[in-house]
């Protein structure tokens, strides 16, 4: 009886002792960490590029970074081999974005479509974060932009020819979330204002909702979709004169929602966004209010965005 008790005590003490040793072996870090508050961590890299395809993405280029962006939208693929499936025609935009701070980017660009100059300011109000107190499940970004068409006035000498007539504006709020390492999604309510519209029944203010999604296929390749739903149908009658005809013909010009799908391919300092879309415009005003080609009819164009970033101001 006494012997048994002795045995148990020895075993118990050994067990207790060894448990303590084991604890001591593994838990050095936890001794330090338990006093530390959990830190808030910002979520980055929701998209590879600062654009989904056409529209802005929730991503920023970073402070002191200059992003040179060369955009191409080729002709319609269904024009066939004589046009090299659209590659014979190229519409392009050359642009520069600069990151003033981690949350503020400004950019300018010039497209040959409508000889349009555009500029924007993009500011992140809230960045998605996790851990810690007051973390946010989404990022909220505000963008405001302006466009100016360099085309000559349609009726030279008209006293109503103000330069402001050639201007357009857009405002956007991006609400986006990186759901996982692979998947990100954003919604972009957008307002476009046109100073001058072709007819007085056309709307000056156009509202649209953009959606953008990314699915990472590998570390360097991602599948992206960019779609803008225009809340009000912009379709209108268009009066045209065909050659050899004396009478004007009226036809309905249908405006459609821009849809682009493509792949982001990243190689070192470059991001290539290769895609197919139905729009030619390369700024918000242009692709939202001026897309007429239909996916359903095969009126698709190939295009790419090439982004090359340069670190102008080095981080300390």
């Amino acid at each position, binding site marked *: 009886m006494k012997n048994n008790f002795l045995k148990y005590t020895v075993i118990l003490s050994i067990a207790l002792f060894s448990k303590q040793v084991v604890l001591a072996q593994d838990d050095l*870090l936890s001794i330090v960490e338990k006093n530390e508050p959990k830190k808030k961590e910002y979520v980055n*890299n929701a998209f590879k590029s600062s654009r989904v395809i056409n529209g802005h993405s929730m991503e920023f280029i970073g402070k002191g*970074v200059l992003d040179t962006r060369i955009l191409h939208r080729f002709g319609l693929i269904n024009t066939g081999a004589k046009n090299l499936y659209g590659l014979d025609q190229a519409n392009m935009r050359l642009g520069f974005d600069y990151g003033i701070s981690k949350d503020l980017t400004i950019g300018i660009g010039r497209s040959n479509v409508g000889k349009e100059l555009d500029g924007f300011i993009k500011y992140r109000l809230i960045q998605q974060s996790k851990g810690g107190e007051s973390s946010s499940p989404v990022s909220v970004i505000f963008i405001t932009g302006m466009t100016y068409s360099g085309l000559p006035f349609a009726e030279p000498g008209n006293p109503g020819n103000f330069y402001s007539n050639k201007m357009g504006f857009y405002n956007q709020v991006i609400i986006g979330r990186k759901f996982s*390492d692979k998947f990100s999604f954003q919604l972009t309510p957008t307002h476009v204002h046109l100073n001058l519209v072709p007819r007085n029944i056309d709307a000056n203010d156009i509202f649209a909702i953009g959606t953008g999604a990314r699915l990472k296929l590998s570390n*360097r390749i991602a599948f992206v979709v960019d779609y803008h739903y225009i809340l009000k149908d912009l379709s209108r009658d268009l009066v045209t004169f065909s050659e050899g005809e004396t009478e004007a013909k009226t036809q309905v010009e249908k405006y459609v929602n821009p849809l682009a799908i493509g792949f982001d391919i990243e190689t*070192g300092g470059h991001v290539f966004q290769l895609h197919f879309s139905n729009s030619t415009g390369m700024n918000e005003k242009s692709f939202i209010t001026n897309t007429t080609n239909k996916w359903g009819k095969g009126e698709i164009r190939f295009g790419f965005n090439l982004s090359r970033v340069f670190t102008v101001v080095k981080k300390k």
Partner: protein
Amino acid sequence: MKKILFLSIAILSITTAFAQKKLYSTTTGTTTFDAGTGVENISATNKSTTSVFDAVSGQMQFKIMNKGFEFWSQLMQDHFNENYMESEKYPKTMFSGNITDIKKVNFSKDGTYPVKVKGTLDMHGVKKEIETTGSLKIKGDQVVGTSSFIVALADYNIVIPGVVKDKLAKTVKIDVSCNYSLIK
């Protein structure tokens, strides 16, 4: 009688085991690495390295959050987290091992002592034994620990794509410097 004796031994042994530890720690250690080949500066610094060691047993641990590495270029930092380190999947780098010759260090006498460190580096989902040398500089209750060693990226399944082969070194030099203070 015996019951009391053994119980007291048991309690004693627990408390001794506890009291035997003399822990030094930091949460603001610096870890830098250099993976450049001379073409481009590819280096980064992490200033929130957590580390603890026991001056009695020599046991030593490190924890480094991969996202805490700061590069001079935002793009490099993004690539580091997205493509190479995969920081979402493998958020931290751990080291767990021992200062094998801790007995040679006299913590009550100020001075610099060379030490040997051996243990497991757990990085990018791969655990690998490493061995290196370093030094402990004692000044009162403060200890400055420094070490420098080299790891091969291939050992940790970090793949270097062809386009950056000339810029990115196959082996990375890592420098660690920690200002430890005694936990009382």
